[in-house]
């Protein structure tokens, strides 16, 4: 019976064993490159970003405005019906104050990142993005925010055409 097994299999290595070559190691570095065609919905979405606008797709089955847009509704499982512009304002659904960059390296100045639900889209529908013009002490769930767009000549048709979302000012939206 297993409770009586004394030697469980496995030989532990330390970090130095791989780096220092004390165990036999075979190395390789894959070089794979990709070009994704953005597809019907995302091509329009990215083109609109370059124009400084956010766009969704309406489904007449469930009456939702789907954002980010898709050409079919995954709930109704039917084609969506029309393009609908949504606003560039919304609310912070959740966020993190990250001291890790993309490669898990430590950074001193934290990245504020989270999910914004977009005004004009169906409830809870939004995108992940950065937050700016606020501190880690100001940011909170439910905060109203607005997109800060890069100047037109700097836009490339990417989610990065929005620099970040900043707090909504009095009188806006």
């Amino acid at each position, binding site marked *: *019976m*297993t*409770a009586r*097994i004394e030697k*469980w*299999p*496995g*030989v*532990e*290595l*330390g*970090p130095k*064993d*791989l780096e220092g070559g004390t*165990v036999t190691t075979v190395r*390789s570095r*894959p070089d794979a490159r*990709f070009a*994704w065609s*953005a597809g019907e919905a*995302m091509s329009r979405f*990215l083109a609109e970003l370059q124009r400084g606008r956010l766009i969704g797709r309406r489904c007449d089955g469930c009456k939702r405005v*789907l*954002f*980010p847009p898709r050409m079919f509704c*995954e709930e109704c499982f039917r084609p969506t019906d029309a393009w609908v512009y949504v606003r560039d304002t919304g609310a912070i*659904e*959740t*966020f*993190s*104050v*990250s*001291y*890790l*960059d*993309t*490669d*898990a390296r430590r950074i001193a100045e*934290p990245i504020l*990142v*989270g*999910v914004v639900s977009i005004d004009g889209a169906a409830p*809870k*529908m*939004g*995108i*992940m*993005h*950065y937050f700016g013009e606020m501190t*880690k002490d100001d940011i909170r*769930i439910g905060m109203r925010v607005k997109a800060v767009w890069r100047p037109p000549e700097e836009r490339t048709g*990417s*989610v*990065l055409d929005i620099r970040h979302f900043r707090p909504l000012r009095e009188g806006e939206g």
Partner: protein
Amino acid sequence: MRKVAVVGAGMTIFRRRLQETGKELSFEASRMALDQAKMEISDVNAVIHGTAPDAFDGVHMKGEYLLDGSGGIRKPYMRVYTGGGTGVFSTIAGWWHVASGLADIALVVNEEKMSSCQPHPQSVFAHIWDPILDRPLKPNLVWIFAMEMNRYMTVHGIPYEDIARVAVKNKRNAVGHPCAQLPDANITLEDVMNSEVMAWPVHRLDISPPSDGAAAVVLASEDVVRKRKLRDQAAWIKGVGWCIDSTMWTDRDLVFPEYVNRAAKMAYKQAKIDRPKRQIDFAEPYDPFDYKELHHLEGLGLADKGKAGLMTREGITERDGKLPVCPSGGLLGVGNPIAATMGIKIGELYWQLTGQAGKRQIPHEVHTGVAQAWGDLMQYGSVVVMGA
């Protein structure tokens, strides 16, 4: 459908780096499970191999690559992969092979080697994100957990210390596990709460480690159990459930894991459980982060929404509590070799239900346990209910 039992289990130690290859680890775990079940590979009718992204190993067709180590040659064989959910899902795949009558004996083997990817598997996790919407933002995997944890804490008003307490409990429970990577008998709540903030609200000690390891279980039909006189070492699979929600994770509220709840209801229905809080004696929910244990207890219907932290504070989920949770030590204490966490989820249910858990044995009698795994982009739940 036929009744199906787990009649043997095996696993390797879990460590940040192991010398053995994935095949060798698979063999070790499989051999132990077969020995425990008093079987040879020739007795096995079908083999199911669970393993997570190919990119960890840098080998595509990973199921085929690992095949020899899991005893699958010249047999009906399949690789299953449902992200972190594989840890429980592969047993579900094994169950349907036997329950359907297609196989009398099935071997389920899960393996993960996360150390091969240099310098850290984080670099391949970057490829799980949507290439158009998410990747330009250069996301780190910890971000999504931080966002989910924040939503869960804030909406319910759960104090961080109620979450950090899960890490303390599980790392202490792991002291009794012979395969554990991060057992700590002396860890305190302050240690967890004062550990480095990685991506607030996630601290370093809220996170399970990347690990290498393998685990295996042998599944058998009721006839096999009777003919081979394995009843004393059999734990029966009473119900299985699985469910996935949309990959569009920024379009749904992360406060509650609806997909886990649906998977649990599917499994409970089959197991004839209508009051899980009363009928489930212990649980092994997926705990790659401490808040996930709480989130999953709520998804599993074992705690009211927003109340799982309170249960932890009151000691209900300790090994000697009313509802022991992660008596194995969990992913937080034993380690997180993605698919191979089967050894501390399905494996722990098996060992507890058959009285083989040694130092980890729950001190009071338990008859029914539930194991659950979770994965992909916060969207996948797999649930197995087992009984003695």
